[in-house]
């Protein structure tokens, strides 16, 4: 799978979390934009996230934010389908969406406030204990997944199954569903409880909430691996989002998230959201503007490497990015050669002061992207921002910013 389709997969997730809708009529109604309100864009029928009875955890979270900032919470209701962002946030009818992927492109995300994962959902009495996409039983079990429209490959689990040639035994459940019924995406979980499918692969918060309320005991297990290579992730960080440029509100929301971290955690746990640890939260990363590979650098450091105009790491000193770089360092097996904490082994140490090919950010980037002699492979197929995060982690070694010190 190439990188463009993993963007598509990420967007499909965005669709799942944020929801999409083609051609729905907007809920009419006056929109008060007084500065004393927190104007929330939300779906009126999408538990466990939100509904117009204010039963979702995003409703509770909005209340919490409103209380902290001394703002009254108001809603602009619209089913979360295609056009949702355009017709709500971008139309200035409301100012914040409570849950989007942290890499969301259509708006400006805050710091992520939780990380969850796709999960396997099965009846406990089946004792499937299935946890990996590579489990051979997936070739035979009846598997339910969400679909958007009629494309069976458009959410990450469906793509992961297709990649493994698991197609015929996959059953699609529309993420739109019948909107006259409560919480249409929950039909996928109902199907497991009824035995219509042996197993469902669903976004964690949805699955955790409805599995707990099902008539029979259901088992919810995070999928493994967390990322299919070259890059199809099943784990996502979730943030709030504001309009691009609305940095005043974004900064205020970040500070609320920071102040109420444990309350938010408790709230999510009450809703049975499968949570994975967020690695770091202090800094607010600015998404980089497509960093260019520094091709003008020669194959070896020149006589005056520091005098060249070299691109700077957009993630330099960004603690969240450094922590992510640490995760990627293990994920892409860098640690296998260079050591768990970069101390070396099969490959040279990255903790010492010796850089065979130059130790500036750009030259480390180049070593990763293009490979080096004596066996360093080229990782140019990784997204540039991931390479920069790896660079950020490597540059943090033996500094006060090093995460997970040995």
């Amino acid at each position, binding site marked *: 799978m190439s990188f463009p389709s993993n963007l598509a997969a990420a967007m499909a997730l965005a669709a799942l979390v944020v929801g999409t809708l083609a051609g729905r009529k907007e809920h009419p109604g006056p929109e008060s934009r007084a500065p004393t309100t927190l104007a929330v864009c939300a779906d009126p029928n999408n538990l466990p996230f939100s509904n117009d009875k204010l039963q979702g955890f995003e409703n509770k979270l909005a209340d919490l934010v409103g209380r902290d900032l001394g703002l009254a919470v108001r809603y602009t209701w619209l089913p979360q389908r295609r056009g949702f962002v355009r017709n709500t946030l971008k139309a200035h009818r409301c100012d914040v969406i409570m849950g989007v992927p942290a890499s969301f492109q259509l708006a400006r995300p805050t710091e992520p406030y939780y990380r969850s994962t796709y999960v396997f959902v099965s009846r406990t009495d089946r004792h499937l204990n299935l946890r990996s996409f590579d489990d*051979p039983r997936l070739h035979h079990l009846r598997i339910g997944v969400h679909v958007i429209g009629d494309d069976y490959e458009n959410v990450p689990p469906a793509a992961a199954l297709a990649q493994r040639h698991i197609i015929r035994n996959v059953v699609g459940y529309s993420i739109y569903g019948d909107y006259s019924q409560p919480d249409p995406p929950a039909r996928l979980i109902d199907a497991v409880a009824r035995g219509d499918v042996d197993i469902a692969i669903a976004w964690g918060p949805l699955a955790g909430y409805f599995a707990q309320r099902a008539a029979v005991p259901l088992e919810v297990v995070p999928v493994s691996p967390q990322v299919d290579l070259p890059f199809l992730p099943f784990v996502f960080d979730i943030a709030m989002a504001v309009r691009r440029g609305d940095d005043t509100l974004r900064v205020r929301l970040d500070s609320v998230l920071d102040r109420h971290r444990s309350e938010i955690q408790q709230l999510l746990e009450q809703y049975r959201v499968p949570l994975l640890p967020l690695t770091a939260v202090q800094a607010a990363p600015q998404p980089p503007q497509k960093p260019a590979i520094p091709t003008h650098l020669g194959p070896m450091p020149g006589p005056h490497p520091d005098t060249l105009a070299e691109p700077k790491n957009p993630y330099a000193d960004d603690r969240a990015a450094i922590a992510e770089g640490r995760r990627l360092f293990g994920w892409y097996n860098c640690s296998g050669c260079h050591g768990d904490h970069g*101390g070396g082994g099969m490959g040279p*140490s990255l903790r010492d002061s010796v850089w065979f090919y130059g130790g500036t950010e750009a030259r480390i980037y180049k070593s990763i992207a293009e490979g080096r002699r004596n066996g*360093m492979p080229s990782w140019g197929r990784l997204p540039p921002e991931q390479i920069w995060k790896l660079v950020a982690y490597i540059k943090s070694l033996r500094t006060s910013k090093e995460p997970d010190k*040995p």
Partner: protein
Amino acid sequence: MTLIPACQGGAAPSPQRLAVALTTGTPITAPAGREWAMPSGDYAMTRFSSLNAITPANAAQLKVSSTFSTGVLHGHEGNPLVVNNVMYVVTPWPNVLYAIDLTKPGGAVKWSYQPNPSDRAVGIACCDIVNRGAAYDNGRIYYNTLDGHTVAVDATSGKQIWKVQVGDMNIGETVTMAPIVVHNKVIIGNSGAELGVRGWIKALDAGSGKELWRAYSTGPDRDVLIGPNFKPFYPDHRGTDLGTTTWSGEQWKLGGGTVWGWVSYDPDLNLIYYGTANPGVWNPDMRPGDNKWSLTIFARNPDNGEARWAYQMTPHDAWDYDGVNENILANIQIGGRERKVLVHPDRNGFVYTLDRETGEVLTAGKFVFTNWADSINRKTGRPAENPAYRTKQGVVTRGICPSSTGGKDEPPSAYSPVTGWFYIPDTNDCMDYEGLEANYIAGTPYVGASVRMYAGPGGKRGGLNAWDAAAGKAVWHIDENFPVWSGVLATAGGVVFYGTMDGWFKAVDARDGHELWKFKVGSGIVGNPITYTGPDGKQYVAVYSGIGGWMGAVAFPDVSTDDPYTGLGVAGAIPDIKQASAMGGMLYVFSL
């Protein structure tokens, strides 16, 4: 062979007495004497020489007679060969073969052969860029190159006769082991279990390099060359396609079990013996099942490769206890009768004495501090595990002994038919181990474990163990500060030689381990000493100096010791090695 009476007493046996004793023994193949033509001296892998000029009485007079720089730093595992007054030295990558004319004063390079292996191999080899040596047969030198080739070189002219690709670096395969030649077949195996390689052993036609047979260590019986003549001793080794059914899914395709250690051969039974490496991915939770045939000793017919029996030492490995260590063949008295045995000191801390005709465990005793298992059940062949030390994904299991490097790693032991004892270089380390989710990315490490090692009980990190295989216990032990990663040489003169990571080459009395002589070489020793007779009729002893290999790489300047997890955890065990040794690459030759 039992102890001869002379060796049970306190008095030093005279050389004559030892020579007499030797002739009363029954070495199963001719031991090394004037020459050293195979990796371990003989087919039985005894690393025993019939030379007896150097004795406990005169060893203190040993001195350097010549040296030779290989031009390569990094780990110098393995040993040179000596045939027809020519010494053959294979260096670590780039795997240059030197022929040294021993008739010239101090030795002179007669020719050198450069196979020019790819530099990509440097980054793919798990455990330094080592080579464990060559085999001589019928006028030719055979050896492997790190980038996955086997070469045949004319021993007189240095001309390449053939060179064939046997491994694929794109999937992480390298080749480091020393071949043996049986019935005109060059027996080789692959390395790379840390990269999700599927292990194999192959026979190449000595004349052409053409592959004659190949036996995988995992997969269906037809790939493992298991057929009607396969008669393992233990019931749980019997069944169809255990190389796939003892794995989950298709994990066996990345299942490791590489063959990077030593191969021995019994001409009477016409069977070769070798062990397989760890199963693919160190995280045991990613591969439920016994994971056959990883960590297994195979007995095979060298003519067609078919398996005769197999014995898996460590089912469902959770510690990286490779089973590749040497299998020394001897005939010894057990329970009042002579048994044809195979003695295998394993990474997992036990020395196994097996009946080499059947694969039955006769004795299995701990030779280092070992807590992951209490004993080996002789009825089932399975270890009695201590569940507290079975590692898991997402849990740091602490205090496991021995560590992943094992009670010993690849450096081969020696067997003296004079004393009847096995001389085992050992490591006393323990570890903390956490299984981690791992991604398979072809050609990159597929490990999935975070490991930190440290010294075992007592703080001495290794030594030399004299082992009574019939009793299944140690006779004596020499403590060393660092793990002993050199092979051992035993001689009919009653002297045992070994080297240390901090660069001491030592001669000790075979009877009691009493130190007779030592010499400090330039760099730590991870190679294997040999002995031979020079053109002048004198007995010489040769060994490589050049620290490296998995553990020895901690001495390298581009390996940091402020992270104990470095080098798959070995840095934690010997962070002080940088003060004791630095990189080198030198052959040392000693004589009286």
